């Protein structure tokens, strides 16, 4: 168990709702859910959600901490915002799903090898490095995430697409050597570090 997770378990004991309210983005809105079920039919990848958002909110109230935080479901969110515009109680469902996923990721409870967890992490690290996303290293990193052999296989399958993008001047092979970046990288990095530090302190991610 990570220290952050241990601390959270000790601090909130049996009150998972309280933990979510304190540490999850927009988590204080969870208690507003009236279990109407409208959001449950809203997700584009719905059949792949083991627990719908409605069910997740119910499980939070029932204190099913392990089950919620290790769930694969939140990672199926495509950020389509269908749920938000439909919810009669105006719960920011999309953000709560992202918040839960991020919290589970930080505590080390999110499913290992979850593809969106890995891609999301890769994406963020890619953008933080230069302040802007480098689409080529992002794509390469993504296809090689399972090791070289798997990467070559997926890479080959996508090669036609990749070459087409290069020909259409929409993917720059030179970006692998750097590519676009913000000028004030030092300031940008200092700012991100500061924001991470404040957030970690607030949410108990630092021991």
């Amino acid at each position, binding site marked *: 168990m990570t220290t952050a997770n241990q601390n959270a378990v000790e601090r909130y004991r049996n009150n998972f709702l309280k933990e979510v309210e304190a540490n999850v983005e927009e988590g204080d809105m969870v208690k507003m859910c009236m279990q109407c079920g409208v959001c449950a039919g809203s997700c584009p990848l719905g059949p792949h959600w083991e627990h719908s958002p409605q069910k997740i909110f119910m499980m939070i109230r029932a204190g099913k901490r392990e089950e919620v935080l290790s769930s694969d479901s939140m990672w199926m969110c495509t950020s389509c915002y269908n749920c938000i515009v439909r919810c009669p109680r105006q719960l920011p469902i999309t953000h709560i799903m992202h918040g839960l996923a991020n919290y589970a990721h930080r505590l080390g409870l999110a499913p290992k090898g979850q593809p969106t967890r890995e891609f999301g992490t890769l994406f*963020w690290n890619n953008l933080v490095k230069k*302040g802007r996303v480098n689409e080529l290293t992002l794509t390469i990193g993504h296809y090689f995430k399972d090791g070289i052999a798997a990467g070559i296989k997926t890479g080959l399958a996508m090669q036609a697409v990749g070459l087409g993008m290069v020909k259409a001047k929409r993917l720059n092979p030179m970006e692998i050597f750097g590519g676009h970046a913000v000028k004030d990288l030092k300031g940008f990095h200092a700012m991100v570090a500061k924001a991470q530090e404040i957030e970690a302190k607030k949410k108990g991610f630092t021991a």
Partner: protein
Amino acid sequence: MAKKEYAFYPGCSSQLKASASNYLTSVNSMCEKLDVKLTEIPDWNCCGASVGYAEGGELPRLAINARNFALAETHLPGQDIVATCAACWLGSRETKERLDHTSQLMKETNEALAAAGLNYKGDVNIRHMVEVLIEDIGYDGIKKPVVKPLEGLKFAGYIGCQTNRPFGIAGESFENPKYLDQMVETLGGEAMTSYDQKVTCCGGALAFSEPEKSQKQIKDIIESAYDSGAQMLVTPCPLCQANTEVYQSEINKKYGTKFNMPVLYYSQLMTVAYGGSIKEAGLDGQLIRAEALEKICGK
């Protein structure tokens, strides 16, 4: 008419040789004809997109967006920020809303910004290019520069998610927004109003991480466009554009379909109708070439 001026936030995908560089090319051509002046926010950074949450968390995401605001406030005071990318627009608007409503987050964000020598006062206004077109230019204004109406061309208006929900364009419904159809008609083209996948999700960033699941979505989006009688898809969103264009060949392999439908930006349609060249409209950047539009350019 005085030039309209905006602080421009192009976003990562619009950069030179990035996936939506043809979007930027056509936006620039379109704005020239409409007498709109876009000044890039100096040294802008990525918005974090939607999928940045996994590692990025909340405050770091707010901070990177607020950095753009602070730069715009300092260098382009009084100008609305205009984004062309749905995710940039959404990420910025969400950040603004969160900071407006929660003084604690505003305080913490400014603490982070201070590390970069910046400060955000809370004054910016964030808009999508489509809002500028509809609200500031108006359909009459959009029509004025038309010299080559898109006669006889049939378009399915694919709006997708993030230009539509949760904020959307004022006066439009979430289920059936009509502005894109109206823009097509304004340019002399024919909008397929029976197209029923207008606001379906393309899978967004999950097209990378969950390709099979997302390609099923994309298949529905393209199939329905063919069913409606459209020759081309038109969209306001760079991720929708990339996903629906790039994966057609993969879908053909998997499902035995014969998709080969060009996917354009509204700004490309406008540039062509305004008499722009293939290059000015960014049509040379299509993976699936839009021959019918290229023909109009050559006329």
